């Protein structure tokens, strides 16, 4: 066992760069998955089977296949179709798209949990459809599902290292570059591993508290 603190110190500048990229992917990926998930959820509720059926199939397919392969698919296939994104943008889209199929299920459960009386009240007041959704249903649904969405943000955080596969400069990729340059594997990888626990554990405590608060 030979732990070298100077290797840790040398890794720090790269590490912070990696943390910033990881957080950037996390924030943008979350926003994308939250909004896209809502679109899927609404489409799944559509009375038109022409809309709900294909969306159901596609989201099921995305949920059952690995993020890594989807990432490679987007990264290698989009340029063939003439769409050129940076690795960072492709990675963020892949992670947002993948998790949107999970958040869709969360939204669906949340919307289903709004009591039927609320729908009936909105109809009785002859609210237009968009008012029913924006003023009555969604505010109540979102309150219930916030903790579940929080859990998926944590899951997304733990999936960001996969983006190293297409050389996005997030934490894992930075540690690989550091190891390639200095032949020190132990310190950079351990620092990154601990960083994940340090971010994920308080985050999961926060989600748990939120869950308890909103349950009341």
């Amino acid at each position, binding site marked *: 066992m030979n732990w070298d603190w100077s290797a840790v110190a040398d890794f720090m500048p790269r590490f912070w760069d990696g943390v910033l990229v990881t957080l950037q992917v996390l924030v943008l990926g979350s926003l994308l998955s939250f909004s896209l998930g809502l679109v899927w959820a609404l489409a799944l509720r559509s009375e038109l089977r022409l809309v709900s059926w294909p969306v159901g199939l596609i989201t099921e397919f995305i949920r*059952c296949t690995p993020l890594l392969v989807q990432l490679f*698919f987007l990264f290698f296939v989009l340029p063939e179709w003439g769409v050129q994104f940076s690795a960072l943008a492709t990675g963020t889209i892949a992670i947002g798209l993948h998790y949107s199929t999970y958040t869709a299920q969360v939204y669906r459960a949340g919307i289903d949990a709004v009591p039927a009386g609320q729908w009936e009240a909105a109809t009785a007041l002859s609210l237009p459809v968009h008012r029913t959704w924006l003023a009555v249903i969604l505010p109540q649904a979102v309150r219930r599902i916030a903790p579940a969405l929080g859990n998926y943000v944590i899951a997304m955080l733990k999936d960001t290292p996969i983006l190293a596969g297409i050389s996005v400069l997030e934490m894992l990729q930075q540690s690989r570059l550091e190891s390639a340059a200095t032949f020190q594997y132990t310190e950079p990888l351990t620092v990154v591993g601990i960083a994940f626990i340090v971010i994920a554990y308080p985050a999961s405590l926060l989600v748990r508290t939120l869950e308890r608060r909103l349950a009341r």
Partner: protein
Amino acid sequence: MTAGLWQNWVLPGIWVTIQLTVYSAALAAVVAFGVGMARTHRSRAVRFVAACYTEVFRGTSALILMFWLFFVLPPLLGWQLVPMWAAVLALGLSYGAYGAEIVRGALNAVAPAQREAGIALSFTPWQRMRLVLLPQAVPEMIPSFCNLLVELLKGTALVSLLGVGDVSFAAYLVRLATQESAQIYTVTLVIYFVLAFVITRSMKALERRTKANLGVVAK
């Protein structure tokens, strides 16, 4: 895609993916039941150690753990794991931590009267667990385990980054050989989808069987 690529890379790749899934699921099941039961143990110390395990392995990323086992363990301990086993260890240990929460939740969901009845019959704690609690908790765990198993199957794709020749790695090689990304990656996604489908169907059947043993009709 030529028949040669298919036979030499993709088919063995599928086989490696299946093997990885089976081995890591077996390890994860052992960890899940061990740690999950430990989390309902009387002794506070045992519960604390088990809780630490789940928090650490759920807190970090499976890919980081895999890299750590593969690159850090050798200089630290002086022995090297075959990539396949580093992968199985990483997947089994981290998904086992998620499974432990499922086991704990299902054990806690068994009606308290059942436990009390076990005590009244002066069963030992282990007899209570084996004869009363587990048989009732296991059918409850199956739907969650089914989800976890699909997650594990998807997790096996990560091993391709360590150079293990699973189906994702095969796809990468085929892409290099044919320069056609859309085709091979679509095929790969479909392969995973089919494997996931087989898993969900068999778990549904298993759920029905275990529930029938308890005299409950599965929904």
